[in-house]
């Protein structure tokens, strides 16, 4: 009995791959994953895409209406506000939690007791979005903890209605989400920094580079693959933003702080307009996929060559 190896396969003439002796088991091992994903994720995905072309209230049969849901969606001022807020979320989430995560990782890299210094940032990450919302609603309520502190320090803005006026409330929620998300980015960047080979950094240091120059010319370029992942995850995550907003404003007052994820939920489960909800979901999916194609392509290409 001989096990096939890659080397042996390469020795064979082109186009005549030997049959994989484990093909039955290999299918058996991959099947549960593929089946689960197909039935619970891909089939619903296709159905939602189809429903986006229909008028459907959950009762009776869907009625085909073509792109009517999409035209209705873009004609809705509430949707446009939601779209703008989602854009804010994407930009804010790339700038703040990713930037802060990088800062924390770089500052704590190679430091004695780095674990302890990173601890305060990891606590919020393990907290649920709803609990984050509970805490920050309390801090940001009108005349709440933040306003009181600002008044005490005689800072201007103590009378701002943090969660009641848009787009201020969206900005504040992005800050709350950044408080939650910076720690995990610091963790990921920390892993990346550890895997950077020491020699080139040492060589650059001998050549006189230090501090920010060293970071800009050596560390940052070598972190690039990881940055792609972290930014990609941040984009995908921010597009799906739901729980923090749900807990803090439920998209209100009115619809001023809605995100696309929330708009979809409301259209579907509050207004029972499944078709419109599906259209929003599909639109959200298209921009999420477009946004992540770049990062994913690069990632998978890298790991394929391993």
């Amino acid at each position, binding site marked *: *009995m001989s*096990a*096939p190896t890659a080397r042996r396969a390469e020795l064979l003439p082109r186009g005549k791959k030997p049959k*994989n002796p484990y093909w039955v*088991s*290999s299918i058996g*091992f*991959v099947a549960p*994953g*593929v089946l*689960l*994903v197909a039935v*619970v*994720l891909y089939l619903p*995905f296709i159905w*939602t895409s189809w429903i986006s072309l229909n008028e459907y209230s959950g009762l009776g049969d869907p009625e085909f209406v073509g792109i009517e849901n999409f035209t209705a969606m873009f004609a809705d001022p509430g949707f446009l506000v939601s779209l703008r807020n989602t854009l804010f979320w994407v930009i804010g989430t790339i700038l703040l939690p990713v930037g802060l995560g990088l800062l*924390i990782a770089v*500052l704590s890299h190679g*430091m004695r007791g780095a*674990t302890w210094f990173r*601890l*305060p940032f*990891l*606590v*919020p*990450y*393990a*907290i*649920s979005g*709803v*609990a984050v919302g*509970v*805490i920050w*609603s309390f*801090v940001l*309520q009108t005349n*709440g*903890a933040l306003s009181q502190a600002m008044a005490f320090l005689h800072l201007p803005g103590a009378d701002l209605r943090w969660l009641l006026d848009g787009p201020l409330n969206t900005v504040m929620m992005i800050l709350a989400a950044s*408080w939650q998300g*910076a720690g995990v980015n610091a*963790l990921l960047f*920390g*892993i990346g920094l*550890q*895997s950077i080979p020491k020699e080139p950094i040492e060589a650059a240091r001998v050549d006189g580079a230090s501090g920010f120059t060293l970071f800009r010319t050596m560390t940052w370029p070598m972190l690039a693959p*990881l940055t792609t992942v972290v930014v990609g995850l941040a984009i995908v995550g921010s*597009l*799906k933003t*739901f*729980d923090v907003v749900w807990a803090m404003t439920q998209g209100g007052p009115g619809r001023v702080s809605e995100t696309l994820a929330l708009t979809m*939920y409301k259209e579907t*489960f509050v207004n029972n307009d*499944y078709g419109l909800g599906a259209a929003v*979901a599909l639109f*959200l*999916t298209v921009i999420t*996929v477009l946004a992540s194609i770049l990062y994913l392509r690069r990632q*998978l290409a890298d*790991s*394929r060559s391993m």
Partner: protein
Amino acid sequence: MLARKIVLGVLGLIWLVPVYLLLANASKLPAEFGSYGLWEPGTLGGLWQNMLDAWSRGKLNSGVLSTAIYAIVAPAIAVVVGAAAGFAIVALRLRNGFFWLVVIFAASIFPLQMILMPLFVGYAQTGLFNTRLGMILVYTVIAVPFSAFVMRNFFTGVAHHVFEAAVVDGASTWRIFWRIYLPMAVPALVAVFILQATFVWNDLLLGLTLTQSAEVRPIVTALSALQSTYGGSTMSTVLAGGLLVSLPTVVLFLATQRIFTRGLSLGQF
């Protein structure tokens, strides 16, 4: 180095301010809430009382068992399913293995919103709506793509002659998977498990959509309901509820931070 420590320390203290406010105000009894400033600590004795209050008012007791089951069972199944897929692709050299990896992993890119409504309708028709089985199923599937991705990368780092040697010894692929590959992958499995368990415990959207009764509903959903039902008068109760719901994941995450970091760097994305 000292300057870096100071910057980090100050930043860390700022990060802990909301945690302080949470603790300070979750420990004030509703009756004394108005008489203290928001920045002053309350009497610590109030914390326990408020937690009990949140526990009973939020009906957290009925949901906590379900949530624990979801957060343990679903990621546990998912890491094994993901590892099996990774094993098939890497060790068994599944034909077009890379394509199948993409099929599994790509499912995690599109937003959950895309599957909510069909799951809601489908669950209603099959009797899975508002059942623990239905929740375990959906949480498992959500966790599979990431698990398969990390496990496949982990197995790529394992020399193929480990597999060949086991074959020479006469072991079946089933046995090789359970006895050699899975035990070898424990750090990566644990890392993925922790990450997914945290996600499941903290999920709101699926709980909100696919459950109804207090027994089946995940507790984060219950916390959300507690928050929207009660106004400022019982703010301390809501805050205590938030603390209560967050404790398990915070403790798990902080306690396992090292394993987590090590496991993920082995998986190397």
